[in-house]
């Protein structure tokens, strides 16, 4: 088994090094090119902004999803089904073209003159459409993750909180959320990594993200493969870089489980206590 793996590995390495069509010099040349770096920055920004907004909205939807009011539950459920059940690419293109559906919307106080008319076509620039599309889609996935986390909190914990007379809000903040973190954080980390790669879809809207940047270059120079390697390496680098903070956060929230148990302040006293 070992021998086979080593052989396969060597074969790939050999091909990577000896096949001149990989054009590693071109890869090196463009890896830190200004447009590529700009693309990387935009991809990072788009990822974090949509992830943040999507998470906030997702938590809200998760709370609504477990509301005691049936229509609210149904509404939240429909949102989740709709956005998870349709391709992100379709959603992105939809938002970009939403002006066809609602040419202008007016924002203001109903039945008064206060407010203003907004031209949707001008508003829905590629970057706005990309942000809206990715956020709304992400919110649906995050809502499911958060809901799964809420459900993972044992019933006894909720009863304890109730028995102490905690308000629903306090219970959510101090009991439910902290205890759902161990399930929510790893899933959110995976979601973030997924979102990094998913942002590449916005290139179809002409947003100058990482993928679009390299596409612009290779459409000019025809060095398609090396530039795609540049993009791939950057995506790989960024997703790998995320793994470390994720493990730190997971450690933080495993407080109180066996692994995170602190040493007793005074071992002698603790020892005496055990003897009771």
């Amino acid at each position, binding site marked *: 088994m070992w021998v086979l793996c080593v052989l396969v590995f060597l074969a790939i390495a050999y091909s990577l090094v000896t096949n001149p069509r990989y054009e590693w010099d071109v890869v090196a040349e463009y890896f830190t090119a200004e447009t590529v770096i700009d693309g990387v920055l935009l991809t990072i920004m788009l990822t974090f902004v949509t992830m943040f907004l999507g998470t906030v909205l997702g938590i809200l939807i998760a709370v609504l999803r477990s509301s005691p009011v049936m229509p609210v539950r149904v509404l939240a459920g429909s949102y989740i089904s709709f956005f998870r059940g349709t391709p992100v690419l379709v959603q992105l293109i939809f938002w970009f073209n939403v002006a066809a559906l609602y040419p202008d919307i007016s924002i203001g106080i109903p039945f008064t003159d206060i407010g203003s008319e907004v031209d949707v076509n001008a508003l829905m620039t590629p970057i706005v459409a990309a942000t809206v599309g990715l956020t709304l889609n992400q919110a649906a996935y995050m809502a499911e993750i958060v809901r799964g986390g809420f459900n993972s909190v044992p019933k006894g914990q909720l009863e304890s909180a*109730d028995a102490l007379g905690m308000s629903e809000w*306090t219970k959510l903040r101090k009991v439910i959320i902290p205890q759902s973190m161990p399930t929510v954080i790893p899933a959110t980390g995976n979601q973030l990594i997924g979102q990094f790669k998913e942002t590449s879809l916005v290139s179809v809207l002409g947003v100058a993200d990482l993928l679009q940047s390299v596409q612009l270059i290779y459409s000019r120079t025809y060095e398609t493969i090396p530039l795609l390697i540049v993009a791939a390496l950057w995506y790989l680098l960024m997703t790998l870089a995320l793994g470390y903070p994720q493990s730190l956060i997971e450690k933080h929230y495993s407080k109180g489980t066996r692994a995170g148990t602190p040493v007793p302040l005074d071992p002698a006293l603790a020892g005496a206590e055990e003897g009771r």
Partner: protein
Amino acid sequence: MNEPATRQQPTSEPSQVATADGHGTVYGRQLVKSFGHRTVLQDVDLDIESGEICCLIGPSGSGKSTLLRCVNGLEKVDSGILRVNGEDLGYEETDTQYRPLSKKQVAAQRTQIGMVFQHFNLFPNMTALNNVMSGLVLVKRVRKQAAAEQARSLLAQVGLDGHENHYPSALSGGQQQRVAIARALAMDPSVMLFDEPTSALDPELVGEVLGVMQQLAEKGMTMLVATHEMGFAREVADSLMFMCAGRTVEYGDAREVLSNPREQRTQQFLEKVL
């Protein structure tokens, strides 16, 4: 055991009057609770005076937990009168109607009723000290410093000084249960409910928890205890209720019921557990 006869029916007396003299009492009449088609409590009466220790015994599934959970409002009774600390639980009596309390008001009533669960249910993400402080800080809005001080002295009371900074996972079952008792006591309740507080413990740890409960009883706390510990019932309880299939089979003076059970089902049950 002698409840004033005036409490037999819901009267229109203002509830403040009832509060003033009802502190630490539990009063139930014809309590009924069903889950779907299953009737779990059928016409259960309760009369517990201030400072009284009442033990609930009965086979598994007889409705002991359900009764306790009704008494602190975790479950709502379908019908019957239930007054804890002299107040109708979850309801408010006005001159004209009987209407449900808001969530906030129910929560306020609950702070007066301490509950200790079979499986401790400590918050695993908080240290022992923070567990005990949780009700004070998060519900009563006591300042952290003062709450910590109070929590320390409560932990000392249950014999856990030096364990303030331990997470529940680092404590034995008996220690966890004592933290849970301290957590409930922190709210300064007038009635304490215990749902089989020692059933999940290794036999050698049962004593330390019963000891704390006995201390509490001696201090005059009203306690309603579902338990299989007949020794505790005999030594500490004033009254005892034997339940079977959701009904009260026998209810009276604890020693009397234990040594001279009148009902055959009680006799059979006691023979089995003793």
